[in-house]
């Protein structure tokens, strides 16, 4: 019983749910709620991206592209064509899944730096299409998005959104924790340590990699749709290369191959720019220095480093 409670899949998840439930006690105004929601949305993307980077060992420098496709798909279908937001969201997510499935196979044949290049290229192409096709997307100025509504009920206000995003994040974490404990999750970790080795024991490496690529793209697109409806406005900056980098940094900062690490990374790196605003002109320099510093001194990321330190302290 105690052992089960200590495992991430039960104890960890319960503690996480409690943290989400208790957090509003310290969120004293709308601004804090807003940041918490942004953290939650980024965390959903990072939990998916961590499955790809941390568990399967495949890098992606283009996930802002999937996030952006989700956001713009919802925005265009719901706002320009008057689709019901839920239908727009589901259709967009399905379309992104299909796209990720189509490009996944040829792209994931590549390794290391070549894979980084290909995913980076894919993200930039998506970015350029979105900024150029201004007839639909509003170009560099962005596009307004209608609020999310379901059967006449309009989802508005930070407090409601907090609970919705919190519940969805919990769902995402639960899905990810279950996936990595399943045979598919073990197959992913096997191909992380040696792809040829995994194939020798009968794992279809190509199929597994494409599967996790599609899952991570779906998480990103879904979070993008939510973000578009929540903020009511979307600009291409959310699709840009730099946003892809921010997402990967969140995953690595929190700790690769740690689901809760991805959440911690999203929380720290979403809050950091808000804190760095006091540096004004020096904000960019400080952000770059923090990125370098944490990677040099904590190359495994915060959560695994802490867990290691705790384990050593206990013995």
């Amino acid at each position, binding site marked *: 019983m105690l052992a089960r409670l200590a495992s991430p899949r039960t104890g960890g998840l319960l503690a996480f749910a409690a943290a989400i439930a208790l957090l509003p006690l310290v969120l004293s105004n709308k601004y804090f709620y807003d940041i918490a929601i942004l953290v939650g949305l980024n965390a959903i993307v990072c939990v998916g991206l961590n499955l790809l980077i941390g568990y399967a060992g495949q890098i992606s420098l283009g996930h802002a592209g999937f996030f952006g496709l989700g956001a713009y798909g919802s925005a265009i279908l719901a706002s320009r064509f008057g689709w019901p937001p839920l239908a727009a969201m589901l259709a967009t997510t399905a379309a992104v899944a299909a796209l990720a499935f189509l490009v996944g196979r040829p792209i994931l044949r590549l390794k290391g730096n*070549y894979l980084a290049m290909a995913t980076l290229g894919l993200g930039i192409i998506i970015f350029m299409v979105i900024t150029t096709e201004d007839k639909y997307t509003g170009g560099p100025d962005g596009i307004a998005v209608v609020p999310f509504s379901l059967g006449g009920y309009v989802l508005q206000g930070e407090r409601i959104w907090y609970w919705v995003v919190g519940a969805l994040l919990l769902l995402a974490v639960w899905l990810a924790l279950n996936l990595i404990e399943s045979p598919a999750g073990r197959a992913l970790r096997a191909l992380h340590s040696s792809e040829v080795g995994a194939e020798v024991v009968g794992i279809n490496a190509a199929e597994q990699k494409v599967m996790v690529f599609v899952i991570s793209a779906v998480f990103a697109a879904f979070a993008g749709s939510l973000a578009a409806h929540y903020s009511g406005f979307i600009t291409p900056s959310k699709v840009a290369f730099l946003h892809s980098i921010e997402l990967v940094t969140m995953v690595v900062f929190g700790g690769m191959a740690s689901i809760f690490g991805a959440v911690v990374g999203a929380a720290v790196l979403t809050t950091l720019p808000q804190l760095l605003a006091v540096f004004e002109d020096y904000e960019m*320099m400080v952000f770059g220095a923090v990125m370098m510093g944490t990677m040099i001194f904590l190359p495994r990321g915060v959560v695994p480093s802490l867990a290691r330190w705790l384990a050593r302290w206990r013995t």
Partner: protein
Amino acid sequence: MSAQFMQYLLTGLTVGAIYALVALGFSIIFNASHVINFAQGEFVMIGGMATVSLTAAGLPYLLAIPLAIAAAALIGLALEKFAVEPARGASVVTLIIITIGASIFLRGLAMVVWDKRFHAAKPFTGDTPIAIAGATILPQSLWVLGVTLAIVLALSWFFGRTLLGKAMLATSHNRLAAQLVGINVRLVLFLSFGLSAALGAVAGILIAPITTTSYDVGVMLGLKGFAAAILGGLGSGVGAVVGGLVLGIVETMSAGYLSSAYKDAIAFVIILVVLFFLPSGLFGRRGGERV
């Protein structure tokens, strides 16, 4: 050959030469350390911006250019010493994030030291276009092509004929074996960052009079240079040059004949198509993977 085609070819070669210089920088660092230095584009920016501000302060080109190259090289050496070396043995993703952090840092620094405006540099030798086969070419383009050619020749002499160059080449083939025959591989890694930064700065100085420069030109030039290096095959010097020229020419041609709105996207479309069929680029090393 139509005059229009000739015009696009000349423009493409000029842009391609710049991509080739940036790609060479990527390849040199990759060979020495297997690190992809995403801050490579920032050296291009530093070269251009430093030259512009030094000439604005009254220095002649003959003094401003060497100073700008030296400044970029010093920053490259500092990057290796304080950011890459302490993280030795880290994973590819970690190293990518470190160099991207460095590029954000350098861009932020440039914003503080200089400003956010676009700056035009004076051409080296006048701006009267020269007519060639119905097309025209700026004297500055001739400078770009000439200096790139000189650098490629100098590099092939350096890697083929000098002890230090051969030591760098040996390190890229087998780090451990190089160490065993007495090569100081840490020094090689250190110097490779300085050399790459200097190459990037030269590219930035050459292109500044044609395209203007600003604190954020490094982003796109860096990514295109990376695309060129991958297109040719990472770590191959010939590949970097061919990749750069091919990318520059195809990009200019498709911007001219197809769509100029998607000019910047074309490089990435090409790279995706090439990687789908040749997963290690045009001249990259192929071979089995050890398990």
